[in-house]
Each structure stands twice: as structure tokens, then as C-alpha cells.
């Protein structure tokens, strides 16, 4: 079970000011995204967004609903292409999603036809066995290795071994997201993209998931891009918070209105002020309350 060990130390660069020591893991350059329908003027979603994210950073993107947070994440994922500008990952433009980026969406994060164990091992089987390899005699041995590794991840995610044979619909929302994180992490992605991954969870489960993801980030040093509409959640989890908002009217599209480093300790007295600043800047109409979103006090 050598691969189960996830104790990669946090990269030193993470604590350094962005852009000073290493080339950016993700570089978003003057990105504009417009959606258009024939016969109608295009609607601008993002307007000239530029951003560097460095290896090992935990970046939260916050903003009001519809401000383009998820669009930005989909650009990094290469699920969408910008109308203008470019998105580089490790210095090269992306053409389609690949295994460098793990992905945990809010919904449909697991394959419903596979058990928990098969969901987690799916990536390993596809990449290391493949369709043709499915007929080789060594397949069974490899599968057992993958399953052992997956069980390790399952345990790390706080799930029981008996959950391994369950189907996704037999799990609670929180358990499903834990499996989805394990499914992504087992592939050792360089970047983990989480799109409102905890939004559908109840407050208690959500707090547990927040602790888990922060611990995993500390252990693995994976670069995490976390989209949320909750400023407190963003501040509590991330090492850096980016707020998107519209400076002009709705037609102008969103841009970065705040880019804040977050103190390491969640007890830091400045955090409350930072949260307030994010709320005032990115949520002029008022942010959702913690009671609704379940995020603990930062």
C-alpha cells in the first residue's frame, strides 16, 4: 500500500508571495468569456480576468451567483474555452480536461453504475489497465492492488470498509463527496478543482468536509481551486481568496475585485475583517448567512 501514503510535505513555495519564486501552475491571461445566441448581442461573463495560481496554493473563488466563478473553474478544467485570452496550466494551453486536474462537482460526482470501490479505482483501471489490458492475466493482480489502495483512501476519508460495496445512491450526500474526493486524489492530480462541492450538504456534514479538505491539502500539497459563494467558507479554507464581481453594469462581465492572502491560523483576529471586506466588495446585496450555508465561523 505504498501509494496510499499521502504525506507529501507542503511545498515551500506555497507560503511565498505569489509569482515571486516559481512559474505559475495556472496562468489565466486577460480572459474574456462571452456567450452568444444567433441574433442576440453576446453576453459577457468574464471581462479580462488575469490571475496566476502557484503550486500548492489553496485558492477560493467567491462571488455572487452568476458572476462567473464556475466559468472560471471550467476554463481551468478546459471544459470551456475563452472567447479571448488564454489559460495555461504548467505553461501550456489546455485543449480538453485531463488527469492533471482532479474535479469534484456539486452534483453527479460519482458514476451511479459503479460501487464505491469501483468508482475510486476507475481512473487507475482506465489509465493503467485500459480496455485491451482487461483481457490480460495480470489484470486481476493489478485490480487487487488498486482496490487495496482505494480502501486506504476510503479509510482516510473517514468511510468504513463496508461502504466499499455500496452504490452511490446508497450513500448520503457527504459520503458521496468524500468518495468523489478520494476518486480524484487517487489519481494524484496536480490541481484539484472543486465547484461548490459542499453546497448541497447540511451544516454539520459541511463543517466535517471542510476540515477534511484542509487536512488533505496540508498532507498532499495539491493545488486546490475551490469555488464557493460563501465568503466565510472561502476564508476558512483557503490560503488565498479571490473575489469576483462586476464593477460596471451587468453587460461588462465580472473581473477580480479582491485578491487577498489569508492568514494561516483560523484564529487570526484579522480574518473577521477580511470576511467583512469580501462581503462588502463582492456581495453588495449581502452574502448568504452561515446558518444557511453551514460554514463555521472563520
Amino acid at each position, binding site marked *: 500500500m505504498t501509494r496510499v501514503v499521502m504525506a507529501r510535505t507542503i511545498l515551500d513555495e506555497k507560503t511565498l508571495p505569489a509569482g515571486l519564486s516559481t512559474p505559475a501552475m495556472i496562468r489565466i491571461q486577460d480572459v474574456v468569456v462571452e456567450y452568444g445566441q444567433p441574433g442576440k448581442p453576446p453576453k459577457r461573463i468574464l471581462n479580462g480576468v488575469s490571475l496566476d495560481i502557484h503550486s500548492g496554493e489553496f485558492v477560493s473563488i467567491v462571488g455572487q451567483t452568476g458572476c462567473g466563478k464556475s466559468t472560471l473553474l471550467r476554463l481551468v478544467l478546459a471544459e470551456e474555452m475563452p472567447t479571448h485570452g488564454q489559460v495555461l496550466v504548467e505553461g501550456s494551453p489546455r485543449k480538453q480536461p485531463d488527469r492533471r486536474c482532479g*474535479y469534484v462537482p456539486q452534483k453527479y460526482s460519482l458514476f451511479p453504475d459503479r460501487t464505491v470501490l469501483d468508482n475510486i479505482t476507475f481512473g487507475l483501471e*482506465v*489509465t493503467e489497465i485500459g480496455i485491451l489490458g482487461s483481457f490480460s492475466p495480470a489484470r486481476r493482480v493489478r485490480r487487487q492492488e488498486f482496490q487495496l489502495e482505494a480502501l486506504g483512501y476510503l479509510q482516510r476519508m473517514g468511510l468504513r470498509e463496508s461502504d466499499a460495496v455500496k452504490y452511490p445512491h*446508497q450513500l448520503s450526500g457527504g459520503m458521496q463527496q468524500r468518495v468523489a474526493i478520494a476518486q480524484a486524489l487517487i489519481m494524484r492530480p496536480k490541481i484539484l478543482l472543486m465547484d461548490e462541492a459542499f453546497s448541497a450538504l447540511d451544516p454539520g456534514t459541511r463543517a466535517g468536509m471542510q476540515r477534511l479538505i484542509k487536512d488533505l491539502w496540508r498532507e498532499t500539497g495539491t493545488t486546490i481551486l475551490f469555488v464557493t459563494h460563501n465568503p466565510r467558507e472561502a476564508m476558512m479554507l483557503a490560503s488565498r481568496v479571490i473575489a469576483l464581481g462586476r464593477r460596471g453594469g451587468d453587460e461588462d462581465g465580472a473581473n477580480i475585485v479582491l485578491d487577498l492572502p489569508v492568514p494561516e491560523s483560523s484564529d487570526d483576529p484579522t480574518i473577521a475583517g477580511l470576511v467583512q471586506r469580501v462581503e462588502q466588495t463582492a456581495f453588495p446585496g449581502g452574502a448568504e448567512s452561515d446558518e444557511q450555508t453551514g460554514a463555521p465561523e472563520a
Partner: protein
Amino acid sequence: MSILQIHAQPSRTTVWILSWFLFATGVVSYFWVSRGRHLDNPDDRVMPTLRQMGRAFSDATLKPAEDDEVSANADQQSLAAKIRSSMLWKDTVATGRRFLISMALLFPAVLLGLHMGMFPYVGSFFLRFVLFFDKIVALSLLPILFIAFGIDELAKVMLIVVGVAPTIVLDSFNLTRSVPKEQIVKGFTLGAGDFSITYRIVLKQIWPRVLNSIRLNLKAVMLFLFAGEMIASQDGLAYRIALLRRHMGMDTIIPYVLWVALLLFLVDFGMRTLNRKLHPWFLEA
């Protein structure tokens, strides 16, 4: 308590009685009317009695058809041999063979729909054509099919394929498109390629629904098969029904119709059971 309440909870016995009530009413009504007709006219052939139908069905299952050659030692044959050479068995085998060939030919239709849904170029190439083709009334093509493919098996099988395949293609296409995009993106991020995602993620997810779709189209398959057999065939269940119609052989036609319904019911039941066993996640979810 009113029976028209949304939250009504009928007992198991009530459900059982209700579900069989219409069957029982139909059977009792038939034999009541049949009895009356036979009292008026003992030679009535429109509504045969149970005894007449039993005798005719027994003949169909144990004796060869009148137009078949009868072997010299027919009386000394074992029961299994008698059944194998019987009219009903031969007709069932002939219809069953055509049915299975047609069902097998529907599999490429599923694959076409899958690829149309997954690959935009394939979708653009085929979609408009299949949508148009789906609107053609298959039975109107019957003369063309018989001219093009002759009156042998091929024309009958083609009739079924032409009649049902576009529906299956479009159904598979729609099911493929309804798979959440997150699943496909997730596949890519887990290292899967286009074809791995198509077959290992999407096909596996839509397969139980495709089986359901095929199951719901079983009656259409049989409809086209029967049309083909009735018009141009030398054997098969529909051929026999059409032949017996000329002699008003209702004592055989009615058991044949019930036999066809039973066979379809068993195929439907088998497919449902198979679906449940193969895809436990599907029905539960």
C-alpha cells in the same frame, strides 16, 4: 374511505383481486356469450368453446400442420418428437428466429444513437436523416422492401429494422445526451479517453434505460414481424393465423393469439428480470 384517494393503501389481497378482476371478467363473459351462441347454433365457429379450443390447441402442439409431410411412424414418435414436428412448435421457431435476428440488428441502432450523442460530427451527420426516417410509416415501405429484398426472410427482418431502429437510435441518442456533463468531464480528469468514456461510462449508464426502451418497443417489433409474415411467408405464427382466418378457424386462432401474448409477456418479464439482476443500481436509484 373513498377508493379515489391518492393516499389510499389497498391491502395485498385487494390488490391481488383487483389486478385479476378484468381477466376473470373477460374470460367469464366470453364463455357466457359462447355458451349462448352454441345453444342457438351448435355449429357456431365464431366463438369456440373451451373444449373446442383445447382440442385445437392440443392438435397444434402435437400434430404437424396439414400442409406438412407426415412421417410414416408418426404415431410411434415420442412426445418430445411430436412436439418438435408440431405446427405450433414450427411456427413458434420460425417467428422466434426472425424476432431474434431483428433484436440482434437493433444493437447497432443503440451504438449509432450512442455515437451520435457522444460525437458531434457523427450526430450532425445522422440526426436529421434519422429524424426524417423515423417519420416514415414502415408499413408503407412494405411493397418497396418486398421488391428490393424479395419475399424471403430479409424483407421481413428489414421491415422490423426500418420500423423500430430509428426509434431506438433516437432513444439512445437522447439517453446519451441526458448523461450529466459532469460525468464526462470527470472521466477525462480520471484519465479516460473519448472511447473509454463512451463505452465505460456512458454506455454502461444508459444501457438499462436502453433495455427498457427496447422492451417497450417489443410490441412494435412483433407488429411489423406479423405484418411481414401475414403478407409473404410460408411459416410463422402470423402466417398460421392469416391462413386459419380463411377457414374461420377461431378455435386455433384464439389459442395462437394467447400463445403470442404469453410469449411476449415472457420475453418482457425476462428482460425486466435481466435488467434488475444486471443493473441493481438502476431500479433502486
